[in-house]
């Protein structure tokens, strides 16, 4: 973009903000920054500018960059959920493209500010990740790059396993238990010899550790891993804090993108576009919203649901008027209410109707032999499967069952199996990383092909053994 175009964009953004305001959007102040493609990809790969170095970020960077270089895909915008918000625009986009992106971004920021699931988000995360990156650099300097990388590999392999409801956490943190045991009998006749004696006091069962199954693996490891150095615990906390920041975004992906697409279309229609600009806009818009054979396109599905909600509350059917008491004309108010209260799971459960599933032509497919085949079109099954895949962000739900397993401080995890088996090859390798952090044997109980199974890694090589019941 040349300086003249930049000025044009600046004016347009001012206008877009006014239109958005008139429509009821309520974003934080936004700082837009024009950046070259390489910087955009870097930020895309790291999730946030200035985040710590790791080869997985390098790999993501390479992938995104390759996709761009071959013209396969392009990141149009990147918006950071902070106050004030930061948004990055591609400097080699056309003015029209960047206008659309600016409108899209404003709706994102409105969502960040007003959706309930972002209530506890750290709004100065940019500074936090920079400080974290600086700490990690210091640890690299003190302990060597390889040491830090080795640790990060292990921690990142379980980074998804944190508690997404930190505010609902139960009472006091768990203390490691003090072991108490009955004196072992010295002869088989002990009980006979003691017949005359007063009955010894029952020793209560040792308190469980942790008292409740612990969902937050990272926190548990940071607090209780037997042999970690303080700096290593700190690294776990860093990864956990950054993951917590990203959680609400993972939780509201469809809503957030749907909301932004819903509004960018409306805002763009208010702008005084020339015919050629309008064609450009329509192309870009339909490109972003094109359905995907193998995924659910969050932009498209999200936007369609919001549009459907608006329509159904604006013009309720007679049935809805009499039975549900909808007055009509409440569409706008309703979509704002939904954006405030829901997350993806409740959004789909409440508003993905039979008609929508059919209109969107949603289906389920699976691998049969070596072909991916459509296997289900029934709307309720489709909706429920999509919902299930959102449980725990599509990650297996894993808890710490026992931090003192076999009374030897071994770690016993339990996969709360809800129908889908684990990828055993990956699980074996992840156990090795867990062992590295816990430095005692680690176990995970799961179900494989309907049979209860415990995978174990004891330092040499993992072995799977069936739990005896």
């Amino acid at each position: 973009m040349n300086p003249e175009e930049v000025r044009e964009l600046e004016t347009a953004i001012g206008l877009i903000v006014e239109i958005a305001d008139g429509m009821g959007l309520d974003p934080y102040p936004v700082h837009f920054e024009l950046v070259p493609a390489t910087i955009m990809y870097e930020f895309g790969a790291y999730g946030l500018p200035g985040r710590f170095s790791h080869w997985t970020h390098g790999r993501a960077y390479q992938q995104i960059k390759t996709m761009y270089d071959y013209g396969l895909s392009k990141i149009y915008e990147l918006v950071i959920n902070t106050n004030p918000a930061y948004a990055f625009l591609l400097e080699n986009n056309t003015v029209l493209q960047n206008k659309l992106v600016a409108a899209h971004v404003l709706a994102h920021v409105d969502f960040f500010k007003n959706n309930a699931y972002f209530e506890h988000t750290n709004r100065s995360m940019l500074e936090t990740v920079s400080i974290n990156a600086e700490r990690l650099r210091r640890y690299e300097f003190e302990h060597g790059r390889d040491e830090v990388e080795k640790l990060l590999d292990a921690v990142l392999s379980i980074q998804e396993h944190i508690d997404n409801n930190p505010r609902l956490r139960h009472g006091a943190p768990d203390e490691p238990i003090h072991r108490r045991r009955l004196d072992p009998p010295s002869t088989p006749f002990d009980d006979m010899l003691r017949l005359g004696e007063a009955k010894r006091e029952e020793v209560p069962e040792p308190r469980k550790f942790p008292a409740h199954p612990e969902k937050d693996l990272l926190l548990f490891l940071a607090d209780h891993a037997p042999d970690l150095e303080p700096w290593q615990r700190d690294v776990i906390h860093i990864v956990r804090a950054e993951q917590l920041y990203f959680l609400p975004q993972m939780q509201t992906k469809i809503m957030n993108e749907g909301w932004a697409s819903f509004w960018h279309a409306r805002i763009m229609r208010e702008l005084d576009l020339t015919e050629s600009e309008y064609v450009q806009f329509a192309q870009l818009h339909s490109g972003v919203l094109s359905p995907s054979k193998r995924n659910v396109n969050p932009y498209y599905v999200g936007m369609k649901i919001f549009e459907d909600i608006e329509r159904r509350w604006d013009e309720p059917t007679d049935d809805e008027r009499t039975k549900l008491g909808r007055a009509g004309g409440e569409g706008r108010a309703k979509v704002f209410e939904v954006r405030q209260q829901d997350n993806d799971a409740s959004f789909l459960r409440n508003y993905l109707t039979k008609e929508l599933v059919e209109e969107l032509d949603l289906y389920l497919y699976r691998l049969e032999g070596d072909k991916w085949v459509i296997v289900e079109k029934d709307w309720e099954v489709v909706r429920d499967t999509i919902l299930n895949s959102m449980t725990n962000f599509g990650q297996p739900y894993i808890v710490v069952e026992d931090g003192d397993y076999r009374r030897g401080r071994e770690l016993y995890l339990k996969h709360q199996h809800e129908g889908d088996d684990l990828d055993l090859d990956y699980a074996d390798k992840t156990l090795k990383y867990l062992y590295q952090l816990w430095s005692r044997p680690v176990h995970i109980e799961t179900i494989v092909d309907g049979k209860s199974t415990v995978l174990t890694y004891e330092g040499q090589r993992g072995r799977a053994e069936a739990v005896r019941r």
Partner: protein
Amino acid sequence: MPPTVSLSRNDWTLHRKGPIDQARHNERVKEAIKGNLGEIVSQESIITSDGKKIVKVPIRSLDLPRFRFDRGRKNHAGQGQGKSKVGDVLGQEAQGQGQGPGKGKQAGEQPGIDYYEAEITIDELAALLFEDLGLPFLKPKGKALVESEEVRFDQIRKSGVMSNLDKRRTIRENLMRNARQGRAGFGGLSNDDLRFKTWEHRIREESNAVVIAMRDVSGSMGEFEKYITRSFYFWMVRFLRTRYKQVQIVFITHHTEAKEVDEDTFFNLGESGGTKVSSAYQLALDIANERYPASEWNTYPFHFSDGDNWGEVDNQRCLDLVKALLGRSNAFGYGEIQEGGRRSPSTLMSAFHQIRDPHFIGVTITKKEDVYPALKSFFSTREELPKVAAR
């Protein structure tokens, strides 16, 4: 009240965090290739490549593992254009292609394993492979052949090209001459002071070596056996040609009769019939004696077979011939291919067990991944052990 917004543009040219981490990722790819050489070496795509092009090698374990669901056993949601119906095929699973025969765990069978395809040229791969390989028991022999000419810029002369003037030495000469004449300091430069850098041609010498590659092409050699033989000799020939410019390679194929063939025939021949290994050893011995006298040549016979020989009588003859060959060779390499290690022990290898000579190198190959270790055991540089008196 509309929120405040601003737009700015900064200079990002010095920002290069992404490329730095990308470089680290590439380093990890290299490491992973090195760690998986055994698996990669015997890839079909490499053996059949023309040697110049870039090959794609699958690398496991580069992804960070995590607890995840088995993707191949799950239902996924997707979206059609409006007319999708149950039974429509969306596409084919792409993994599991391009695997050579005899590979135990194919990617396609295990939907859980993600392969990362790294691109590498055969030459880069060869450099990694051959890093610490060499001909064992190599000795200086006979009249040396010219191996390479090299130019070294380390001579100083009084005449030369002005552009090669060595200023430091010239000044020093001048200072010394002035000092001899009782004057201190620099000045009055004469032609006599000038010093020039110049070069010298050097010739690096290398011992003569001949490798006699013998290949069993009899009917009992199945697909797997042929594949392993080709794979091994592919790398061996490449290795010898890269490392030793003057190594000669003699190619011999045999079933019940042995014959000397050219390289192309050697790699592509498929015959059938019985097996008489002694015929190959006899031919090797004859060729060696005729063309490569032991006094002037380091000799390395190699033989690959499934070990299925004609009978005990021929095994005995083989044993005698191997001893004869060992007597005039630096090392004798024998590779026996037994797919899955299934065969009876009545093979050639068991006959060779009686050979106690450290110059005899026997290797059994049971799976594709054994090719690289075989290369390593045949071509690890070894020195002659000092002779120890028998106790």
